């Protein structure tokens, strides 16, 4: 059941996430203008912004997926508002700690804080432990929350039913149908729980070395594997949470019958759950000391993780829309475009996850190119769709009359223009994470400026939606609500 307190905490999340999003975009645009030589930041300042931007974006979109899933989960099982509030408080505290380290402490080891860089202190001494603690605070909040949701699901559905294994048998009479939403939420939450556990191990290893005063030293290869297992998995599971929301809401707002769990949906998502956990090996292709078997698993898993997800989800969305009368609204247009952005970003990812391409794409701007495509033009749109839907829900009116076509056109131009400049630069070997470009990359700065201007268009649309959505969200706090 959706209670008033659930609406309130969800509103608080939406307002906070969107506010942080606007700021993080502004930092992104600042970085891109710096790379375009339009402004001139001190490199340490640039990398502080890079760290803040990365950690904030990854954080807010992971948690946005959890907010959406938690809200919709209330339709199926009781959900705990206090866990939700607990996660909110810890998230706010964690984000404040992280921003203090980057803006006041000048910490700038990037959001991946690759071992041993955080120990080569080029910032305030306290910033390293506080940054790691800040991540820990976020992690604990989300871990407890994710486990809480998982336990609620398991109270109603048996293990077999949560994973929809009954749909994999040849017997056609399935007594209990697992809603796709429950299946995908389960798969994503399991992934989140596993990667947060890896993060705990990583942080413990960092602190063990930090406090051992030299008697305990970590293994850089192990730490790199752990870092990317955590980072890659978190980023991917965020997307899957967005897809869970899509499965639940898109047919509903389109005025079409709900999606059903069939054997291929069940199989597809069960495969995805396994593949996604080993795809992170593609981050270590250029570490030749890594066992070759892992490298091969990396490419296989990267390819096959996309198969079930694409074949099942993209095809289902196509079947939903194709030659069917759809009640188009901002909400389902955002879902629909999110699928397009996700697929296009997926092609970029697939190209990069091919080892023989990775050798000339690894750590070039091709990497931010593809992940910004499936984030800024994929996952973000899934979450915005949910935010827009929830805001309309709060004011009790899903029938928007305002035209949204200008917003959509500007969003597409701004978003795809922005990422396209990354793709061009990436294909022409321009390195990622460079505060300024060496002169031999003759067009890199120009592409960066153009990307920044496109991103400004994107930001305008986000601000526009921000005001529409936040206005409605504030209503639930009014005493007369």
């Amino acid at each position: 059941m959706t209670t008033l307190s659930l609406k309130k905490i969800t509103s608080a999340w939406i307002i906070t996430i969107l506010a942080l999003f606007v700021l993080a975009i502004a930092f992104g645009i600042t970085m891109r203008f710096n790379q375009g030589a339009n402004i001139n930041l001190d490199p340490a300042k640039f990398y502080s912004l890079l760290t803040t931007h990365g950690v904030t974006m990854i954080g807010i979109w992971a948690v946005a997926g959890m907010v959406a899933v938690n809200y919709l989960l209330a339709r199926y099982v009781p959900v705990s508002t206090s866990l939700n509030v607990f996660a909110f408080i810890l998230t706010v505290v964690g984000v404040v700690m992280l921003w203090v380290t980057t803006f006041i402490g000048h910490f700038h080891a990037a959001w991946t804080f690759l071992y041993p860089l955080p120990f080569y202190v080029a910032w305030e001494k306290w910033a390293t432990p506080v940054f790691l603690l800040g991540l820990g605070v976020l992690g604990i909040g989300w871990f407890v929350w994710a486990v809480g949701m998982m336990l609620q699901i398991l109270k109603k559905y048996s293990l077999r039913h949560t994973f929809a294994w009954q749909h994999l048998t040849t017997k056609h009479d399935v007594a209990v149908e697992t809603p796709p939403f429950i299946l995908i939420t389960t798969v994503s939450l399991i992934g989140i729980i596993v990667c947060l556990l890896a993060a705990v191990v990583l942080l413990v290893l960092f602190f063990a070395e930090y406090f051992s005063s030299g008697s305990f030293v970590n293994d850089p290869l192990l730490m790199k594997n752990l870092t990317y297992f955590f980072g890659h998995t978190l980023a991917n599971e965020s997307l899957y949470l967005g897809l869970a929301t899509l499965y639940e809401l898109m047919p509903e707002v389109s005025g079409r019958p709900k999606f059903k769990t069939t054997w291929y949906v069940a199989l597809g998502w069960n495969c995805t759950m396994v593949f996604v956990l080993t795809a992170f090996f593609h981050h270590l292709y250029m570490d030749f000391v890594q066992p070759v078997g892992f490298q091969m698993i990396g490419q296989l898993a990267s390819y096959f993780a996309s198969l079930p997800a694409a074949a099942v989800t993209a095809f289902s969305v196509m079947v939903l829309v194709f030659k069917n009368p759809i009640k188009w609204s901002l909400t389902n247009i955002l879902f629909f475009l999110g699928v397009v952005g996700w697929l296009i970003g997926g092609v970029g990812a697939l190209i990069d996850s091919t080892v023989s391409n990775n050798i000339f794409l690894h750590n070039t701007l091709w990497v931010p190119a593809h992940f910004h495509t499936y984030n800024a033009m994929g996952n973000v749109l899934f979450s915005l769709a949910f935010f827009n839907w929830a805001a309309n829900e709060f004011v009790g009116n899903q029938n928007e009359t305002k035209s949204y076509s200008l917003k959509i056109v500007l969003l597409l131009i701004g978003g795809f223009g922005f990422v396209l400049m990354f793709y061009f630069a990436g294909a022409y070997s321009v390195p990622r994470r460079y505060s300024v470009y060496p002169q031999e990359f003759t067009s890199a700065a120009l592409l960066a400026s153009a990307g920044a201007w496109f991103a400004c268009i994107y930001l305008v649309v986000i601000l526009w939606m921000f005001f529409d959505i936040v206005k409605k969200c504030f209503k639930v706090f009014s005493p007369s609500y």
Partner: protein
Amino acid sequence: MKAHEFVLALFLVSAIAIAGLFYYFFLSSRQAADGGGVSNPTKKRFFFFTALAVVMIILLLVTIPKSPYFLFTGENPSKVVYVAAKQYSFTLSSSAIDPQNPVSTEAIELPAGQPVEFRVTSLDVNHGFGIYNERAELVTQTQAMPGYVNRLRWEFTEPGTYNILCLEFCGAAHSFMRTTFTVK
């Protein structure tokens, strides 16, 4: 067409195809009436899935053998170059490098048309070792990781001056960390 341009073209064509298809799906819903939809979706899904799987398997079979781990493995490198990265410079040497006192002995010259080997490590944080040709195209690369030595084998076909750029974020001066060598 060079590999860089090929992947860009492949990406753009795929992206436009996906965008075009979905735009077509969108348009088809605008004049649709109840009872429309995809005919025989289960069968079409099966074909789509099979086609996708076949394409992926072909791509795997074609690309995996080109992975750097399998290149020049049976050959003897005609020259070995030792590389030690350290915030924010590279030491290149034709003899093993003393970690306490890393010094580049001489300018490095490598033969064209013969496999050579770089033994790359780091003396502090993770760095990258990206080899760029005179047209600023990334030719090949490996990571420089403390405590490990990555062996990168390559055969240069074009003589000229090559730049090495750091390709793993290593701190504030990351984008200025570089060196050069020549191929004759």
